[in-house]
Structure formats: C-alpha cells, structure tokens
C-alpha cells in the first residue's frame, strides 16, 4: 500500500517478515484480519450511507435521473421548514405520538414489571403472555388492529356491549380526530412487553436486603417503592426512555399499513414522509434532508434525556 523509496526497499522485506514473526506483529495482523469482514461491511452499509445522507441533503439528487446531482446549499432545509406544510404536520404528529407513547409505555411497562417481579405460582406464564405481542410482527399487528378498528369491527362491538349500546363507537382510523390516538394504543400494546422485560432486569439488580431493611423500618409497599425501587432503577430508566423515544420517533410501519398518513395528513410522520418523498416521489436529496433533520432531533432528545436523568453525584 505504501510506496517505499528504492533505497529502503532492499531491507524492507526482511523487516516486514521479522515484524510478522514477532508475537506483537502477528497479533496485529490477526486482529486486522478478524476485524476486516465486519469492518468492511460497516463502512459499506453504515458509514458510507451516513456520509451520503449528509451530502445528498445539500443536493437536488433524484433516484433515477439523467442529470447529475447539483449542490443546492440549504435549500432543502429551508423548504422543509418554511414551504412544506405537510412536513411540518408530519413533524408535529411524530412529536405528539412520542409525547404520549414515551411516558405511557414506560409507566405501563414498569407497572407490569412490578406485578410480575415476585416468586408466585404462574408468574412466568404471565410474563410470557405479556411478551407475546413483542414477537408478533408489527406488520401483522397493524393489519390485525386495522380490522379491529373497523366501523363494524371488534373494538366497536365491545364498546357497544360494555356501555349497553349507549355508545356505539366510530370509524377510528378514518376520523382525523381519532386516527393517531388509535395508532398510539396499538403501538403501546405491541411494545410494552419489551420494556417490561428491561424494567424487570433492572428490578432484579436491586438487592433483596434493601427491601428487608425497609420492611424492618416499617415501610409499606408504596414507601418501599419510592425509597428503594425507584432510586435503584435509575440506570434502567435512562435506557428505557431513550429506546422508547427513538423507536417512537421512527414510527413508520403502522402508518404505512394502516392509514398511509391520512385522513388529511393527521397520521403522517417524519419517516413516513421521508420515505414517500425519497422513494415514491424519487426526491432523494429532499428526503435525505428530512432524514437528517430527524436524526438531529433524535440526537438532541437522546442527549437531553441522558442529561436530565443522569445521577447528580
């Protein structure tokens, strides 16, 4: 790889073999060789696409186009924020979705984890049941719930039964007022078991003795939770909040399968809009800019969350 001047070349082979013979040299070669397959693949399918996302966002590139991409500066970003109401609506919907899903899903996950974190007959079965939606594909879940949400579907018929016919439900997914809410419900339903398991792992790192000591001091269940459980869960909380937030911001499949962004844009999200722009309408440059905005938002929110929830010692 390196071009050596002829005068040195005479002794280079010898030095190279000698270096290769030493343990250190062989270790370096072995390390590089074993790192190479993953390294090359990561460069090809992670590093280069990241750089590409960055550079394309400053161009007017199209997926299939006879003209080479042209540098357009910040045009794409300006367009997104000042001249594209659909983008702004998508960003707002994504934000709204995350705002509801993050606390509710984290809270419900913790509640479930506390419920199943004990030695009781049958508790494993409940853990398994709560986890089943997680292993069910989100595509399947979206199609299934689309059926449940139909005007004459199961959800409405259950509401009808429970309220003795006083309230007969509605067309959940075709109503701009309820569509996003309906998608929030099934999204929480699908993923909450995953976070239950993470919380559960956190709960199990809290030493039993702390609870015994708290009991001896006369602490009731609520007091135990506030003084022992909650402080012990701090590192877990950071992880749960960050992962839920990132996956909530990346909302795509449910939208693509259930509503295609409608009705009247009420469920369009950033990722859905980027895919629509970049793939269906072939505006790769603009889509890359939207992806970059999305990434910066993810980064900022994750960093802020980390800072707000970190230990203050």
């Amino acid at each position, binding site marked *: 790889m390196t071009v050596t001047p002829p005068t040195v070349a005479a002794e280079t082979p010898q030095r190279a073999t000698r270096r290769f013979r030493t343990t250190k040299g062989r*270790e*370096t070669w*072995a*390390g590089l060789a*074993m*790192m190479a*397959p*993953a390294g090359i*693949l*990561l460069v090809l*399918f*992670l*590093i280069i*696409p*990241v750089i*590409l*996302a960055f550079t*394309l966002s400053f161009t007017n*590139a199209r997926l299939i186009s006879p003209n080479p991409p042209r540098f357009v500066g910040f045009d794409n970003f300006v367009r997104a924020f000042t001249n594209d109401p659909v983008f702004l609506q998508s960003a707002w919907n994504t934000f709204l979705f995350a705002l509801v899903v993050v606390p509710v899903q984290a809270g419900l996950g913790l509640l479930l984890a506390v*419920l*199943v974190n004990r030695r009781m007959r049958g508790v494993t079965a409940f853990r*398994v049941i*709560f986890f*089943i*939606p997680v*292993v069910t*594909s*989100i*595509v*399947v879940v979206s*199609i*299934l719930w689309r*059926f449940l949400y139909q005007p004459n*579907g*199961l959800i409405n018929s259950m509401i009808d039964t429970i309220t003795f016919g006083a309230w007969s439900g509605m067309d959940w997914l075709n109503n701009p007022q309820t569509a996003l809410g309906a998608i929030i419900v099934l999204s929480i*339903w699908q993923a909450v078991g*995953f976070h239950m*398991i*993470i919380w*559960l*792992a956190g709960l199990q790192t809290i030493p039993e*003795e702390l609870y*015994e*000591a708290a009991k*001896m001091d006369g602490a009731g269940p609520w007091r135990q939770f506030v003084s022992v459980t909650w402080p012990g869960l701090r590192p877990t909380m950071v992880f749960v909040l960050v*992962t839920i937030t*990132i996956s909530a911001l990346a909302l*795509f499949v449910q939208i*693509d*399968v259930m509503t295609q962004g409608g009705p009247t844009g009420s469920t369009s999200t950033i*990722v859905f809009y*980027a*895919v629509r722009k*970049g*793939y269906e309408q072939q505006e*790769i440059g603009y889509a*890359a800019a939207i*992806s970059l905005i*999305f990434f910066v938002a*993810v980064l900022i929110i994750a960093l802020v969350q980390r800072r707000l929830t970190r230990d203050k010692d």
Partner: protein
Amino acid sequence: MTDTRSRPDTRAKGRAAASARIATDASEKRRRRTGKIFLYAAMSVFAVIFLFPLIFMFVSSLKPDAQILQDIDSPMAFLPVGDISLDNYFGVFDRVPVAQFLFNSVLVTVLTVGLGLIVNSMAGFALSRLAWRGRFVVLAIIIATLIVPFETIAVPMVYWVAQLPTLVIEGGVLKYDFGWLNTYEVQIVPFIANAFSIFLFTQYFSTIPKSLDEAARIDGAGWFTIYRRIIVPLSGPAFATVAILTFLPAWNQYLWPLMVVQREELRPVMVGMQYFFQLNTAWGEVMAYTSLITLPVLIVFLVFQRAFVSSIAASGVKG
C-alpha cells in the same frame, strides 16, 4: 438471616417489628391472601388485553367471512365454533405464492443471522482479546454508530445499493453489472455486520479469563484457533443473545424490502402480506395469512422463551 453489620438500634427495631408481626400473624396472613388475589386479578386483566387480538386472529382464520362478521357481536368471536375449516389457508396458497414468500424470508433470516454470528463474533474477538493499534478508535466508532437509526439512512441507502457492482449470470455467462435492487443479497448483506452485536460480543468476550489464551498460545495455537476452539465454545449465551436479537428484525423486515424488492418471487413474507392485503378484503384469508406467518415465530418464542427473555434483558442491562 441476621445482618451482623447492622447497628444495634436497627436490630432492636427489627426485633420489635418481628414480635409485632407474630401478634398480628392471622390478620397478616389474611392481608397477604387478599393481596395475592388482587395481583392475580390484575395480571389476568392484562393477560386478556394482550391476548384477545391474537386469539381473535387465529379463531377468525378458521371461519368464513360471513361468520366472522356475524360472531363479532358476541363472545363467539373468540371461540372456534360454527363453520370451522382450513379453507382460508388453502385460499391464501391459491391466491399468492406464500410458499415462495416463506422460503425467501427463511433464507434471508437464516443467512443474516448465521453470517452475522460469524462476522460479528470475529470482530468482537479482535476488539476484546487482541492488542492491535487503533482498536480503541474502531470500538469508539462502532459504539457511536449505535445512535444512528436505520430509518435515517434507508433512503440514501437505496440510492447507494442501486449503484453497487454485482455479478449476474445471464444466459449461462457470468456478467458484471450494476445495481443491487431486486436481489437476495440486497436483503442480506447490508444487515450482516451489526454494531450492537459486535458490542455485545466484545463485552462478553472480555469477561473470559485471558489466561486461557496464554495457555493455548504456549501450546502453539494461532489466534483463529483460539477463537474457534476456546472462545466460541465458552460463549453460548452471547451467541444465543445475538441470534435472538437479530432473528426478530430479520424476519420482520418491512421498510427495506418494500423499497428494494419489487419482483414478486423475491419478496419476503411481510411485504408479500402487504400486497396480498391491498388486493384483498376477504378478512378470513387475511387472518389466515397473518396467522401463518405469526405461528412459526410464536412457536420458536414459546420453546426458547427463557433465552428470549434473558436476551432482551441482557440488551438493556448496560444502560
């Protein structure tokens, strides 16, 4: 279980509490029992919430459309009663090449997970057990990339893979061509190397005593032999964790194949499902299709339930 380290006053308090407990033993027992009943009731309510859509799905897949709609107003919706048959399943197989979709998904999943285990564990080995210059920089870069969601690079990636060189066989001749769209490799190769898997392997391998390597080296073993004969056999849990964590996303892939695979014979089940769903409102058949692609994963999960749960837990413990 006396804690000898506790201070005298705590111990005294503990003793007092213990004697008080004996006095109220009976009421305590009663309280515990009501507590338990309450817990089981709460867990059962959640169990119903988590299971009803899936039970409805499996049950409906066995019924003709007319009966699905008729049963929806009663608990019959959750019971396999009435006109029960596997007709919907045969209907699905008649209408779309489900067998081909299933084959594609299995092929893609097996190769992604299998090759990923080899490639990522080797990288983890190189990063955790071999001293070479630059490995800390490489590890730092890999950890930094964990923050990049796939969604942000998906669209540029389509643009990128559309220009990659590939070898094709055309009329018995091996040719050189460009563009990975509509191939198997575009569904597999980009997902083999995985930063999070490398990170997990690195973490796990660094807990194995280094003296094992040294002993093997004295016996004349090379690094690859050490990896293959010592580290891999000792790392069952790490391999299981990575296999499970990469199996689910590989099987469930949707966004990526939706964009890069248009040829029907290359489609995986999830994308095939979406097309099938779009051209079809026969709900019984749709439910049969979703049941068909859910059952295998559900069975795998129920069999390896313990490994699944501990894998997910392991992914979150690092914080």
